[in-house]
């Protein structure tokens, strides 16, 4: 009786190990493809990409900075950022910045916001996130208007909009704090 159970469990574990090894590579490939696609969406064309992790001034986890070069010149930085302030959990986004710190574009990576309300942060669902294009955080405030900022909130989903601003601001502040290091990278 116990033997049968052990055999069943062993067979199951073996099958799963096999499937896991078979799908491991496609899973990593599809994650990598999603990351590349997001980087491509928020940056102009580049020929070389250098990735590094930097700790934000506030927040629990490091951000991934993808420095994009074209003919040896730094043309932009794609920052994979996050916020824990979402309406339902963590929101992740990719923020493209020019070497001067101006926002090129923003695209969401992962969220669990309410369908029909908070999911308007997705580019395909609404053009809400277009207002970040060309936004200069050094001159305007990355906050929703209710909080005295320059970003229009999403109707009935202010929490989500506020969280998205928080994620983008985290990327920008980390960029500013490490600007010297990032610019130096250019001269290598």
């Amino acid at each position, binding site marked *: 009786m116990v033997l049968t159970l052990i055999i069943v*469990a062993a067979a199951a574990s073996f099958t799963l190990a096999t*499937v896991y090894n078979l799908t491991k590579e496609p899973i990593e490939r599809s994650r990598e493809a999603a990351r590349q696609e997001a980087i491509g969406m928020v940056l102009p064309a580049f020929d070389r990409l250098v990735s590094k992790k930097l700790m934000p001034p506030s927040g629990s986890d490091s951000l991934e900075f993808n420095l994009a070069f074209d003919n040896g010149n730094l043309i932009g930085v794609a920052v994979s950022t996050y916020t824990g302030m979402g309406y339902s959990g963590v929101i992740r986004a990719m923020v493209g910045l020019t070497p001067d710190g101006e926002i090129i574009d923003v695209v969401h990576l*992962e969220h669990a916001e309410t*369908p029909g309300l908070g999911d308007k942060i997705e580019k395909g669902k609404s053009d809400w996130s277009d207002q970040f294009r060309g936004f200069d955080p050094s001159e305007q405030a990355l906050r929703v208007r209710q909080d005295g900022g320059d970003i229009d909130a999403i109707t009935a989903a202010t929490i989500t909009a506020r969280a998205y601003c928080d994620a983008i601001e985290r990327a920008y502040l980390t960029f500013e704090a490490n600007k010297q290091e990032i610019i130096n990278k250019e001269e290598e």
Partner: protein
Amino acid sequence: MGQLQNFSKGFIRENPVLVLLLGLCPALGVTTSAFNGLGMGLATTFVLVSSNIVVSLIKNLIPAKVRIPSFIVVIASFVTITQLVMEAYLPALFDSLGLFIPLIVVNCLVMGRAEAFASKNDTFSAIIDGLGMGLGFAFALTLLGGLREILGAGEFFGLSLFPGDGMLVFVLAPGAFIGLGYLVALNNIVKKKLDKTA
């Protein structure tokens, strides 16, 4: 019972969601759109058919006392396989179904069919039963997802039907319960009509 009847019972007469009220958690949790409902329904169908096949094959080898734990192991394996394959090839659907994929393992429907049908019947009948029940489940989920998507977002399978936002409450949690309530009532009426003509 003919195989055709065995197959078709899952749609209206013994629909797992609308009549037997099984597997309601995913039925309510993922049906914010018709696409999600269909995806969840098909994933469940895959697990249901696969576990029905294996259970009906090994039913004579398993002592009665460890039957349930063995079935659970079989089902959990297929669920994990579904999870891994979906993450590899359908990452977008994987993200939107989230927690509910590992939870297929506790879908009373899957365990119920393994225990009540597959462990007592031959493999072919078990496949038909799994297909019928699974597709009936997918049918109910797509229906509920479609209803909520149309009323809540004014879209169907992502295609915009009318401009504007729709009644958002249907996309939110309360709409799931209320929408399902009315679908169950509707199915009750249809079933009664069918019984009268039969």
